[in-house]
């Protein structure tokens, strides 16, 4: 270990990230009351992704992590993306085509 870090610096660094997270939290609550219709969900998800990225990058130290760790985290996200996209590839198309099939049967 090189020179000792002053403890105050550790608390300040965490406090800085905390301020950013708190501002994002305030923004997402305000956003829920805005009259933006269908954009509410994308806005809320974008802010949540921003908060998650801050926590993952700085608190969980993913940016400075080794290749194996980053691959493990990315694989988790990949499976999640596959699960969501394949589920909705089924769910959204099923709803649209069901009328056509039932008409022929009647």
């Amino acid at each position, binding site marked *: 270990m090189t020179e000792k870090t002053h403890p105050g610096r550790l608390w300040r660094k965490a406090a800085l990230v*905390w301020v950013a*997270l708190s501002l994002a939290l305030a923004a*997402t*609550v305000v956003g829920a009351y*805005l009259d933006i219709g269908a954009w509410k969900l994308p806005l809320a998800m974008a802010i*949540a992704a921003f908060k998650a990225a801050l926590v993952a990058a700085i608190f969980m130290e993913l940016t400075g992590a080794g290749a194996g760790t980053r691959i493990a*985290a990315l694989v988790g996200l990949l*499976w999640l993306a596959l*699960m969501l996209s394949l589920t909705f590839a089924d769910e959204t198309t099923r709803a649209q085509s069901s009328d056509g099939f039932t008409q022929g049967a009647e």
Partner: protein
Amino acid sequence: MSGLNEPFQTLARQRGAAELGIWIFLASELVFFGGLFTGYSVYRFLYPDGFLAAGAETNLIIGTANTAILLTSSATMAVAVWAGREGLRRHVLWGLCLTSLLGAGFMVLKAVEYAEDIRKSLVPGAGFALPERGAEIFFSFYWIMTAIHAVHLTIGVAAVSLAAWRLWRGRVDWRGTAFLHVLGLYWHLIDLIWIFLFPLLYLLGRGG
């Protein structure tokens, strides 16, 4: 050198293995919660109006306060990990104790909220309060997701408290090992899950 276990020859190798191990676990947790998030998304897609009506019934004040509490606890946990690397024992203990107290605070508020939800008949089943189609499904997800999150948080509070106790008594090798980092990563995952639960469960049907 204490804290070094078989079969590792150096502490750095041991730290690397512990970090990779906990990340593989966290990735599996992500997929586990992901199944619930996917189910939620499908039913929200099928019953958008029911979900909006039901979401407006959740307690936004407690939800927001609890989000702030968890975000703060992640910051104090991060300080504990960073201080641990510098060998600052007192600051590690402060970080762990604050984290565990904030986690307990979250659970107290959640219990108050659960009691209110039960009073408002927001438990799916006979006598459910809302008539909209899909509202009951929303609350099924609300209860399951927040309850599983609370189970993880309970384990987290117990683990952080135990770590603080053992560290105070000098019964754990925290200098140079991945002990605090691994504990911190688990705690931050609980926070990450909540960061997405909050807008999906509390921010629906507000305003115009």
